[in-house]
């Protein structure tokens, strides 16, 4: 028998949702202050209005649902999945008020794309967007990359037992430090230290490239936030091509790679355990998949004669590949060039790279390296069982943070999530084809949205069908949360309707 959620359950959800809403609204103080210092008064009003709407809703909900109860597992998951939808709506308000988005749905699309660190965009005339709105676009990537709930956990909520449930709900099942709050704070510390270093490096390169000092550092900060959080937004419409700079491309590759590494490995890196990083199954799998997919991409580019020489093939092919594999979505080519110039093999290699993703407990999307590694270990184990005598004890182990013996439960979990992602990629592709787009293009865009990548072959545009915009929003949301929270929310909705 399915039990209908009680009023107490709803109050509990409402109370913790209110905290997330309040926390998120307060982050808008940053663009407000920035807008005022840049004398951008109308954009400042956009953020003040959005912040007020957020605070009114948050405080009202908090007072209405005041409770001292802690969250259970199901409630933690539901709070997370609803938080992301509410964040999308709240984050879209200042974007929509700017007048640079055609409809509120378009603004929601970009807000979800930002929070989920995807990078697909429907903005109009980006090159004339205010600095404050541009800061917000990149800030939501930074917030979303760390996890919206992590913000609430680390900054606005004092320790509570339900923290772990919300942390896990955001597809973060590894605790770097014994306490979830300390883990959340460590993630922020890592990100802020890298932010300072990345902004400085990109800023200096920008100045050497001929940019004004302010623009160099502003772009540096924005590009860092979007690259480290494997987002892919950029302050200019040409994306990374705007800079016409090899140095910029090299540094963004390094930042994207740092963003794709598991935060636990960052912890090892910081605490001097560098050897562990090279032993880790995720890093090893990542190197292998990058190599294989790059060979496919390079072969395709050679075959289609897309670029004049080996250096161009490497510069364009490798950049797009790393951008896709890490789930960032930075581009140094125009979207239609994927279809016109790249050819089937290159696109196939890139789609595979996008689908695979980066490290677990990082800011990337996609299936993720740990799961791919586990599936291959399981395959190896099964092959051994077939080859070796029946009496032989066959076991497989792998190194991830520590030495781990492969268990069936790990393999099953890896397979379920992998299958869910493949289904999500496929469903999006079928919906794209339903609207008349060719198969390869539909699959490319669907994979990009579901794996939170942001590379586009041109389907994502202001004029695309509304139903496809909604499909991609849902794909970005489900892909970012890695399904469990979404499945729990669906279960909760069913219980609310059919339960007794």
């Amino acid at each position, binding site marked *: 028998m399915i039990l209908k959620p009680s009023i107490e359950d709803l109050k509990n959800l409402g109370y913790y949702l209110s905290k997330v809403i309040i926390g998120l609204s307060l982050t808008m103080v940053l663009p407000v202050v920035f807008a005022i210092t840049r004398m951008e008064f109308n954009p400042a009003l956009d953020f003040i209005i959005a912040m007020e709407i957020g605070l009114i809703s948050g*405080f009202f909900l908090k*007072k209405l649902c005041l409770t001292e109860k802690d969250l259970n597992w199901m409630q933690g998951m539901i709070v997370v999945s609803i938080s992301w939808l509410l964040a999308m709506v709240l984050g879209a308000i200042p974007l929509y008020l700017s007048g640079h988005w055609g409809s509120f749905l378009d603004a929601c699309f970009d807000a979800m794309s930002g929070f989920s660190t995807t990078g697909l965009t429907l903005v109009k005339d980006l090159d004339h967007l205010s600095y404050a709105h541009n800061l917000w676009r990149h800030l939501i990537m930074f917030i979303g990359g760390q996890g919206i709930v992590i913000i609430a956990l680390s900054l606005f909520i004092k320790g509570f037992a339900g923290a772990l449930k919300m942390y896990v709900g955001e597809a973060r099942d590894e605790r770097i430090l014994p306490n979830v709050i300390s883990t959340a704070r460590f993630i922020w510390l890592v990100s802020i230290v890298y932010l300072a270093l990345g902004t400085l490096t990109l800023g200096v390169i920008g100045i050497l*490239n*001929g940019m004004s000092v302010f623009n160099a550092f502003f772009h540096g900060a924005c590009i860092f936030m979007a690259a480290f959080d494997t987002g892919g937004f950029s302050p*200019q419409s040409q994306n990374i*091509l*705007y800079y*016409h700079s090899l140095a910029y491309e090299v540094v963004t590759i390094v930042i994207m790679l740092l963003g794709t590494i598991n935060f636990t490995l960052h912890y090892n890196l910081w605490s001097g355990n560098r050897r562990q990083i090279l032993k880790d199954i995720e890093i090893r799998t990542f190197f292998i998949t990058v190599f294989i997919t790059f060979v496919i991409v390079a072969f395709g580019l050679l075959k289609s004669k897309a670029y004049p020489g080996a250096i161009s093939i490497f510069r364009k092919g490798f950049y797009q590949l790393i951008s896709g594999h890490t789930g960032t979505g930075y581009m140094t080519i125009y979207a*239609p*060039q994927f279809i016109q110039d790249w050819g089937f093999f290159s696109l196939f290699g890139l789609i595979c790279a996008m689908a695979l993703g980066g490290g677990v407990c990082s800011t990337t999307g996609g299936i993720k390296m740990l799961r791919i590694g586990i599936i291959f270990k399981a395959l190896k184990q099964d092959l051994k069982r077939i080859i070796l005598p029946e009496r032989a004890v066959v076991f497989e182990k792998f190194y991830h943070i520590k030495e781990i013996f492969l268990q069936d439960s790990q393999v099953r979990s890896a397979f379920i999530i992998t299958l869910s992602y493949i289904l999500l990629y496929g469903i999006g592709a079928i919906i794209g084809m339903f609207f008349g787009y060719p198969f390869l293009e539909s699959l490319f865009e669907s994979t990009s949205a579901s794996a939170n990548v942001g590379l586009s072959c041109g389907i994502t545009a202001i004029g695309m069908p509304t139903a496809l915009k909604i499909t991609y929003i849902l794909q970005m949301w489900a892909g970012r949360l890695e399904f469990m929270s979404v499945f729990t929310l669906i279960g909760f909705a069913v219980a609310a309707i059919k339960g007794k």
Partner: protein
Amino acid sequence: MIKAFNVKCLMFSAILLYTLHFTHYTSFAQQVSSTELINNTRLYDGKTVVYAGEVIGDVMVRGKNLWVNLSDNKNAIGIWADISFAKEISYKGSYKYKGDWFEITGIFHRACSEHNGDLDIHALTWRKIRQGGIVQEKPDIEKKNRALILLGVLCLVLILRPYRRL
């Protein structure tokens, strides 16, 4: 008589060949949009094209040349030009400025060998077709009023007592 005819024929053929050759390389004397260029890269590759757009963002000087990005309101394309171009740019497009519009005649590259595969235009000549300027930000009274009303509502919500079951 026959000799003179042959010379005329030869001259005519030479002119025809030259014209054909010339039109092959500069067959796009009319302005081409960014969308047309980006969607037909192989058609325009290596050809001389005329492209017009607004200067957006930074003008990035690199030695004796510079990069400037021109947007025709659909897409922006990188223009590689002589450094002397910089002197003619008064306004660069951003939130507070409308950039100058320039018409560029230059060679379009689908994948420029000089710039490691970038899609760009190497400018041969340029002329300013529209002067940019400062965009005056008018205070939005409606937004201001909305913000004030919402502030009032927020204060009301803050002073509300938490809901307690009796």
